[in-house]
């Protein structure tokens, strides 16, 4: 299997072999349904030594992280680098990061599904799984960062012997509700679109796999009525999940913006966080797709055209992020409030300067790089670029959370922050946990949405007009 991505249409117009002129395009390639099924099932049925080695390494990191977390619970939050005034640190930074990552899944699958964009078809499942698992690990942080995690259930509204209802004025309650809603709805959304493919896997496997898939496929037979209901449900979910996805990151931003902490108290935070989440989420998705494509040999499905389109979308998100960042920064800098001035000078020329320039460089350079088709369609280059975006976005969240908290209205209360091994281990645990969930999931269920690709292929036919072969698209649904 070659790892090189050929450009779409590179051989178009070649009159010698008109049958393969559009073979570069997934929805036009000469394949039978059975070939597609087998290509998807192959990595599910055979796992190499590399897979188990990866699982072992990730599990090791997770075990170490769980030890660190129990150490944290046992001895108290003093084992982290938190202090007064830097009450929130790496945990909240990474929480915002993971919530951001979770945004691209819905972005890709719901928005693009509604817009009937065809290049989404092989990507949707990978994106939705990313949303669900990123939310799972993000949801750990509100627990991890609590002083008394064993009392976390006090935030859940239920009639209790304390005769006390939670305080719905608190953005943390909004968080709890928004994240729970998003997790439930995105998991259902992922599962709904999975049912026909689980049925496909059921019909092509035997033994214990067959039994598992039969259970998970919920007796799907593929009748017209079932398809009608499924597509209806997906349409409803696609519409309904968009306000949820906007609200979740807005609420995360309000955790900061509702306080009067300088540089947090900003009305632009909600859209700025949402667009930043899309930027980093799409970048993370591209990185995952490149890695999975190679690890699971899915070159058949994830082609140059897909990375090209995804790269363009990242480029747009990046430009929007830059615009929002500038709009926020300009006003704060121009306002010249003393504390904001101290914070900005700390960023631009103080201790935070290396991180600030890392943030700006790692977020802006990819915008330039992604303008080139060669970067968008070369896996190694694209991977480096999108990883750079995520380094930049993580740094951005760090500067917002930790950077801002170091300065406040009373200079006597200014502080600094040093991370400890406990914090770093717990953060590593969530990265490994996400990777493990995703790796195992992609081997258990069909990673590529077979039915969506087949549906897309129904749209396109090659018609001969004179000596030319012309792809024609039909409206479906």
């Amino acid at each position: 299997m070659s790892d090189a991505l050929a450009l779409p249409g590179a051989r178009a117009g070649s009159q010698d072999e008109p049958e393969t002129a559009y073979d570069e395009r997934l929805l036009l390639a000469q394949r039978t349904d059975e070939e597609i099924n087998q290509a998807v099932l192959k990595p599910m049925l055979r796992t190499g030594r590399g897979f188990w080695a990866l699982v072992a390494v990730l599990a090791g990191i997770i075990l170490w992280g769980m030890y660190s977390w129990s150490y944290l619970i046992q001895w108290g939050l003093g084992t982290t680098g938190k202090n007064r005034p830097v009450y929130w640190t790496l945990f909240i930074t990474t929480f915002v990061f993971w919530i951001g990552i979770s945004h691209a899944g819905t972005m890709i699958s719901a928005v693009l599904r509604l817009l009937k964009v065809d290049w989404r078809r092989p990507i949707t499942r990978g994106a939705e799984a990313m949303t669900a698992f990123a939310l799972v690990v993000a949801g750990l942080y509100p627990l991890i960062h609590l002083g008394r995690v064993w009392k976390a259930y006090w935030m859940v509204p239920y009639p209790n012997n304390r005769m006390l209802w939670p305080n719905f004025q608190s953005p943390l309650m909004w968080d709890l509700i928004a994240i729970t809603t998003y997790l439930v709805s995105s998991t259902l959304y992922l599962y709904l679109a999975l049912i026909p493919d689980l049925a496909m896997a059921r019909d092509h496997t035997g033994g214990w796999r067959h039994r598992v898939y039969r259970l998970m496929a919920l007796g799907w037979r593929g009748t017209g009525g079932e398809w009608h209901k499924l597509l209806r449900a997906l349409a409803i979910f696609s519409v309904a999940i968009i306000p949820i996805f906007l609200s979740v990151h807005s609420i995360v931003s309000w955790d900061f913006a509702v306080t009067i902490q300088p540089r947090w108290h900003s009305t632009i935070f909600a859209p700025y966080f949402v667009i930043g989440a899309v930027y980093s989420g799409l970048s993370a998705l591209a990185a995952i797709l490149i890695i999975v494509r190679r690890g699971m040999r899915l070159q058949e499905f994830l082609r140059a055209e897909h990375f090209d389109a995804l790269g363009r979308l990242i480029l747009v998100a990046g430009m929007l992020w830059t615009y929002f960042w500038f709009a926020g920064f300009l006003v704060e800098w121009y306002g010249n409030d003393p504390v904001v001035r101290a914070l900005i000078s700390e960023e631009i020329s103080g201790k935070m300067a290396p991180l600030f320039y890392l943030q700006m460089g790692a977020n802006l350079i990819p915008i330039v790089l992604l303008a080139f088709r060669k970067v968008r369609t070369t896996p190694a280059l694209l991977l480096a670029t999108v990883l750079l975006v995520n380094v930049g976005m993580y740094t951005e969240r760090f500067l917002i959370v930790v950077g801002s908290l170091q300065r406040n209205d009373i200079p006597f209360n200014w502080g600094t922050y040093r991370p400890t091994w406990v914090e770093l281990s717990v953060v590593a645990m969530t990265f490994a946990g996400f990777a493990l969930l995703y790796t195992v999931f992609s081997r258990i269920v069909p990673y590529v949405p077979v039915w969506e690709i087949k549906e897309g292929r129904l749209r396109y036919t090659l018609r001969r007009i004179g000596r030319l072969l012309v792809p024609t698209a039909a409206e479906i649904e």
Partner: protein
Amino acid sequence: MAKDVNTLTETNVGGPRWAMVVDLDRCTGCQACLVACHAENNVPVAGEAQAAYGRWLHWIIVQRYWEGQYPNVKARFTPLMCQQCTEAPCEPVCPVFATYHNPEGLNAQIYNRCIGTRFCGNACPYKARTFNWFTPEFPEPLGEQLNPDVTVRSRGIMEKCTFCVQRIRRVELATSAEGRRPTDGEILPACVQTCPPSALVFGDLNDPDSRVSQMARSRRSFRVLAELGTDPAVVYLKGGETNV
């Protein structure tokens, strides 16, 4: 300024509005208030290394600022404790009502409810709240002098100045048994009781004749970060030139 102070929102019409006056012109920076507060409120001592990293637990802290260039250097002292804001930024952000406004205008901190999100600590512009990073330790013989009227807090929760609410309650109970209201100066928080130069004064701001009311009307009065609109119940006095 004086007029501004008198607009303190009355949350308890007819009842007291507890307030403190800090006369910066009198403060010598001796930190007796801090020691008294530790003893009265079972505040643990964090230790030098932890305190240097910003993890002290003092409910009142004498902030020292240097002014001027050598050799004309002056030390400025600002004792700062929870300002018991009327529009407290810490209150709405707590998801479990561990911090809330009681009818006497006090910012109450309910230790047992706190789950340790530290959101209140971020919201407080005065950073007057402290967090129990570790299980508090009271090395012998400090354990022998714990105040039975005050909860010893566990690790993982926020705490802060309460205006010695246990002392307020004790006097209120005693005087209501006698069928009268506390007289001005009858309630003394530990820091006020201890302050050698009497820089700290405590009383009822709703009583126009109380000492705090009279001092709050002074031309010297101001409130810290008044521009934020938190409407604190701690009034500072600063006017004359002090050269400490």
